[in-house]
């Protein structure tokens, strides 16, 4: 069964139709990259999937549990139950600045999932170790580099053992040298068959790691499929135009086109 | 206003409510020598001695309650104090709000100037500045002589007589209008520094203020006054504070 099913999702802000009939599924262990120009609705889609925004219409379902149907949401308890199934890594991390790294990771398991403190800390330390942050557990977020902060954010999201992880532009706030570091972590997660949906501008990452690429424009899914196909040989005119721009800053070292 | 304090006197005292025969005396603790604080912070003064003696004779326990003088009538009517007793001048406008006892003392509003001042009479003050304590009977007295008031360049209202006299000394004001008894107290220390004009404003009288509804209490106080006059207690207390008997109870 699909971990996440989105069907005919619709969302407007006033007159602005941000999502128009979006449908896709994410299978267990799949890595999906969502690409598309600025303003195309990628972040809004992620925010709807993580209940930060409410859909106007359509269906969202996690492993068979309905979150919303035709824009109608379940009660608080149902929503709270579904929240345990996903994790979200924000673009600017949104770590809790007043908590140590370890406490950032353990607070939700202890307070929300009611986990025993000792167990939560053991699990938290394990996650931090995996992220290469063992020595930083007592540091505060402001003492960490951007890349380290992001790894804490990933550990925090993973601490509730979600079935699926969402990332919103995980590398765009980072110094280019750190980008490699964070992409390595995500590659490792992919190798462990973590289910992930990643909004990204890193074509290299999308091509190398994602199982499927979804290209969005103006609230529609314009094209989706195998990343090698979509990125290197896009069918759609809009996709082609978008990907051309990336050529400029050296994704494929090609110099053929000028930007539109 | 009369709903609570209607019939009898001391039994209705809200402030001292626990005990039937306690009476709360409202006073200003910055008004020497009538009521003020001695160097150890104790409440002392002529009025305080008389009030204590009077109510003791009436078999009542006295509670002295310093209040802010600008809300004194409100305190009285709200029954937080049972009487106002602190050089409280009897005036017509106050009579409308307050029930007065017999006048127990005469007072004059006099004008203090510096010893070396060229001011010798009220007329000399025309075009000059006169200082006084705000919300006091001095300001009522001044209002009663509009011609004099209008001849002044400026009337300076201070929170207390102390600052008014300081203002006089430092040259801000040319004269201070002040209760005679108070002036005596203040000028006692440095008698040579000040001079008192021969002119004085209308004579006035001090009385004790009660709520309109407390006639019985007022009458009893009047009786006690007479008693104290007869047995010489009033004279004794007056001599202690002023060196002579200046009380006016017949």
């Amino acid at each position, binding site marked *: 069964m699909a971990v996440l099913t989105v069907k005919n999702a619709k969302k407007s802000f006033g007159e602005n139709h941000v999502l128009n009939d979006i449908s896709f599924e994410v299978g267990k262990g799949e890595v999906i990259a969502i690409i598309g120009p600025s303003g195309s609705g990628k972040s809004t889609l992620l925010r709807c999937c993580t209940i930060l925004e409410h859909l106007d219409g359509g269906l969202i379902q996690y492993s068979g549990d309905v979150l919303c149907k035709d824009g109608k949401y379940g009660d608080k308890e149902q929503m709270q139950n579904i929240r*345990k199934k996903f994790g979200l890594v924000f673009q600017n991390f949104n770590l809790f*600045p007043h908590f140590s790294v370890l406490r950032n990771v353990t607070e939700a398991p202890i307070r929300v999932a009611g986990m025993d403190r000792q167990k939560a800390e053991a699990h938290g330390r394990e996650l931090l170790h995996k992220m290469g942050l063992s020595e930083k557990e007592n540091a505060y977020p402001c003492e960490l580099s951007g890349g380290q902060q992001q790894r804490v954010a990933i550990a925090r999201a993973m601490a*509730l053992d979600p079935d699926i992880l969402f990332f919103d532009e995980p590398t765009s706030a980072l110094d280019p040298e750190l980008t490699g570091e964070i992409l390595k972590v995500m590659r490792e997660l992919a190798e462990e068959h973590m289910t992930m949906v990643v909004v990204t501008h890193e074509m290299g990452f999308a091509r190398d790691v994602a199982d499927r690429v979804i290209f969005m424009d103006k609230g529609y899914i314009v094209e989706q499929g195998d990343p090698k196909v979509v990125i290197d040989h896009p069918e759609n005119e809009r996709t082609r135009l978008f990907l051309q721009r990336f050529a400029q800053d050296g994704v494929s070292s090609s110099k053929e086109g000028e930007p539109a | 206003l009369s709903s609570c304090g209607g019939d009898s006197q001391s039994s209705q005292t809200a402030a001292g409510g626990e005990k039937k025969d306690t009476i709360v005396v409202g006073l200003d603790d910055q008004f020497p020598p009538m009521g003020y604080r001695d160097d150890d912070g104790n409440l002392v003064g002529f009025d305080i001695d008389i009030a204590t003696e009077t109510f003791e004779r009436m078999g009542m326990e006295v509670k002295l309650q310093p209040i802010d003088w*600008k*809300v004194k009538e409100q305190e009285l009517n709200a029954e937080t104090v049972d009487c106002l007793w602190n050089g409280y001048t009897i005036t017509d406008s106050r009579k409308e709000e307050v029930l007065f006892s017999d006048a127990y003392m005469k007072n004059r509003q006099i004008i203090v100037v510096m010893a070396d001042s060229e001011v010798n009479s009220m007329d000399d003050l025309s075009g000059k500045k006169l200082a006084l304590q705000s919300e006091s009977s001095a300001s009522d007295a001044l209002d009663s002589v509009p011609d004099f008031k209008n001849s002044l360049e400026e009337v300076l209202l201070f929170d*207390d007589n102390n600052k008014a006299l*300081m203002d006089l000394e430092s040259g801000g004001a040319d004269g201070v209008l002040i209760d005679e008894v108070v002036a005596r107290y203040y000028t006692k220390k440095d008698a040579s520094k000040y001079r008192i004009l021969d002119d004085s404003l209308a004579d006035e009288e001090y009385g004790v203020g009660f709520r309109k509804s407390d006639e019985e209490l007022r009458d009893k106080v009047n009786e006690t006054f007479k008693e104290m006059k007869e047995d010489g207690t009033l004279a004794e207390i007056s001599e202690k504070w002023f060196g002579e008997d200046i009380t006016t109870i017949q």
Partner: protein
Amino acid sequence: MNDLLSLSLQLLEGFGWTLAIFFLTLLFALPLGMPLAMGRMSKHKWISKPVEFILLVVRGTPLMLQLIFVYFAPFYLFGMPLGNYRFPATIIAFSINYSCYFAEIYRGGLESIPVGQHEAAEVLGFSKRQTFFRIVLPQVLKRIVPPMGNEVITLVKDTALAQTIAIMELFRVAQAAAASRTSLVPLVMAGVFYLVASFLITRAFNWAERKMSYYH
């Protein structure tokens, strides 16, 4: 010399009342400011507008008037005997007044917490209550330390207004002493008390600021 000692003791007693007003006002106004701040920020106009009006009136009129009003209103409006209401009235008036000032400071603090903090907590499943007490409030506290310091120092000096309804606080005692001695010395001494109190408060707030600076 002996006189100065006795004067100091009197002032100290007045200072006791000053401190009592000070701490009780903080005790009530500090928490009370929070619901007012939230009411002011409410999305519902029928909550935010009345609260805005209350804040305007309380912050726009002198505390002295509010003291007179709070003290005498029960009697003059409802005929209730005042009894020993003098001190409670002081605390009520000060608490209302200061909670309105604190409310505006809290609002500034609350509005400066990035919405991302709320969202992160929401996605992790924290309840509204947990989000407020564990995530938002600690961060607000850190941000409001400087303006609160200013307001609290003002409170120390404002306690002098309690004399309006005849509380024998420091400044009243000093003024009475100044009147009977015809001297400004008691007032200057009171000034020193206020200065020391303000200094200690400044220190305490600096310490709090430092203590909370382990993160930013």
